[in-house]
């Protein structure tokens, strides 16, 4: 371990802690949100330093990107009504002091636990390595997401679907873009959209052997959709075709799992020979659904407030 990288790590870690502190204490929520996005970007650097490029991509695209966009958008809606001003700097009072002490105690205990972990820990890296040839892909993270622990991912896609249902339930009204979309944005969208679709497709395909995969690809696709929405506002109402696309990824994943179970295997047991193609299929379906999910989460379901959804 060279001294330079150690300094880099120390600075990066310190910066992360500092940003976290600042964004929680700034009274201006807009600035706090911007810091949150910066925090996310720096965090993805940390993931790279920790040899977790898949996580880094996801953090940049989803953790910082989608979340940041969502928070900024929500802030804009709050601002339009005023409650954003209700944010107050945190004054230390007795309950907060007690809370702070408790949390510090927790931190100390956490540090002690981390430091006292037994050395020589190998995790599951050797088990993973041994199982990789049968997984149908080369990237161990993808193998884990779609094969070893594919069941987790199935339920995770259910969570995405549920978030859309929740947003629809709430009739969250969309905000028109702050300013009428200028020609620049229009041009930008036209120029950016095709390559974004290509990048998404690449990420999906690359997930098999390199960092990337359905979630990262979906985030890129969704970013395209959101840009498009900013340029030419549209809405994704609770309509039949939208619901079909939203449910598509989950349905495909579940049906693949069930079919395999009825063919004599276990639930979600991908046969070695077809694992690669099955994973690609599931990922494609999932990516389309997830991309639309992110767009819906951002856009809401526009003119559905009176319940005029068509179904």
């Amino acid at each position, binding site marked *: 371990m060279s001294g330079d990288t150690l300094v880099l790590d120390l600075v990066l870690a310190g910066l992360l802690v500092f940003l976290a502190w600042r964004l929680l204490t700034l009274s201006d929520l807009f600035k706090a949100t911007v810091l949150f996005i910066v925090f996310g970007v720096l965090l993805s650097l940390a993931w790279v330093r920790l040899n977790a490029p898949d996580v880094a991509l996801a953090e940049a695209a989803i953790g910082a990107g989608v979340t940041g966009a969502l928070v900024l958008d929500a802030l804009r809606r709050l601002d339009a009504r005023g409650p954003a001003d209700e944010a107050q700097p945190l004054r230390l009072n007795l309950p907060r002091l007690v809370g702070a002490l408790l949390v510090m105690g927790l931190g100390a205990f956490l540090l002690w*636990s*981390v430091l006292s972990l037994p050395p020589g820990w190998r995790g599951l890296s050797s088990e993973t390595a041994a199982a990789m040839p049968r997984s149908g892909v080369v990237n161990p993270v993808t193998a884990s997401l779609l094969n070893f622990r594919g069941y987790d991912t199935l339920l995770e896609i259910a969570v995405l679907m549920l978030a859309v249902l929740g947003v629809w*339930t709430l*009739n969250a009204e969309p905000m028109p873009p702050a300013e009428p979309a200028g020609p620049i944005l229009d041009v930008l969208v036209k120029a950016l959209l095709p390559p974004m679709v290509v990048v998404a497709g690449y990420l999906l395909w690359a997930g098999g052997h390199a960092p990337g995969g359905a979630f990262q690809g979906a985030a890129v696709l969704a970013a395209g959709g959101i840009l498009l929405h900013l340029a030419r506002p549209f809405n994704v109402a609770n309509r039949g075709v939208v619901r079909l696309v939203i449910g598509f990824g989950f349905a495909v994943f579940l049906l693949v799992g069930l079919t395999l179970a009825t063919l004599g295997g276990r639930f979600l047991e991908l046969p070695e020979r077809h694992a690669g193609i099955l994973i690609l299929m599931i990922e494609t379906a999932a990516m389309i659904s997830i991309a639309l999910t992110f767009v819906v989460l951002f856009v809401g379901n526009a003119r559905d407030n009176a*319940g005029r959804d068509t179904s």
Partner: protein
Amino acid sequence: MTQESWMEGTLAAPLLGAVLALIAGRSAASAIGILTALVGSAASIGLAFAVSRGGSFRYAVGGWGAPLGIDLRVDALAAVMLAMTGVVGLCISVYAVGYFRGKEAEAASSRTNTGPAWLFWPMWLMLWGGMNALYLSGDLFNIYVALEVVGISGIGLIALAGGSAIAAALRYLLLGLAGSLLYIVGVELLYAGYATLDLEQLRQRIDAQPSTWLAAALMTAGLLAKSALFPLHFWLPPAHGHALAPVSAALSALVVKTGFYLLVRLWLDVFAALGTEHVTTFLGALGAAAVLWGGVQALQQERLKMMVAYSTVAQIGYLFMLFPLASMSGSLTGALLLAVSHAMSKAALFMCAGSVLAVYGHDRIQSLQGFGALMPMTAAAFALSSISLIGLPPSGGFAGKWMLLSAALAGGAWWWAAIIVLGGLLTAAYLLRVLAFAFLEPVVASSTRAPRAMELTSLILAGMAIAMNFALLPLHDLLHAGGAR
């Protein structure tokens, strides 16, 4: 059918139903919902029979096996919770059909429509699927994902009611999210120590490291917040009290049991080797406090649904008294029976509240004169479920409490026994206060009737809570055959 296929059916039916209901949309959602409920409950009951005959088993999803893959474990404890979810879930589904039909008629007469109300079906089925996944899971991280499925669908369902339910849902979400994160910290500490997420493997490898204790503490804190045990109960009454009736029934009867179930798994199984006497006593003491505090609060409520919601706070407390008594024979049977009959009677009570709301247009307890004469079936359901909740014989609540009481007294722990008895009296006080109004003469002759399906389902559920009096022996046999520990 094999044990495995019963299990696959139990797991997949609600998930599949949910996505189909979503895609099919408003017109077909309720039909799909009922069909799914029938299949799902049949599968879960079949699974319970299969476990009682063939014993417990493990199921490696994806065929990889722990620690790399995710193992499900299907034992008696899981089978009981699944069957409970199946039976009560079916009744809630039937009730919901009547409930939303009533809402539609109401909306039609005022020339509006019910908006996104049909989203109840995909969210409810997903909630059901999430609970089933959680009960089956043998993997710490998979449990987290299942918890999130349960949590988010529950929040969406609460939000269906609009109005003050929104803030309640938001509070629930924030607390639930914090709880999940604490749970994850625990999971990662355990993984960092033992390189496995599987409950069974953890149980074998566990030792008293500082990180293990911290993990246990954080996971417990997170789960306590989710299961609304005193003093982390404050989010529950507004959330359950403001939701739509079938939603309240599902949350109060079923969802609160998930946290309890996981804590039983953790403290009576995985962490048992840590020497957990103080922890179990602590959990029991919180339970006792919940029984008393929830009871006193329920006594002071003016709205029926809020009262029933506070009653849930108290009844959760009873379940937690299992922990200090767990070493006594019969206590697990008793606590499980208590959980099951609470699910039935609490669902029935919320259904009654929904029916009352449909007829009276409000649920202020002081103005419910004569609901016995206006809606005799609902009054009967209310009375029967009260009997079980109070723990009067004959009822599942009584049989469960009897077992806990016997366990406490056999262990010489008379203070737990005293709390159990005292809690019963408190329960009687707040439930019978409402029930007395049934016997007054009605002040206004209301012409609206609650849909028959609603009244009948609540009565059936309440009847089942009473019949659970005779479930101790089969439950005992099932636990014996399915090796709950």
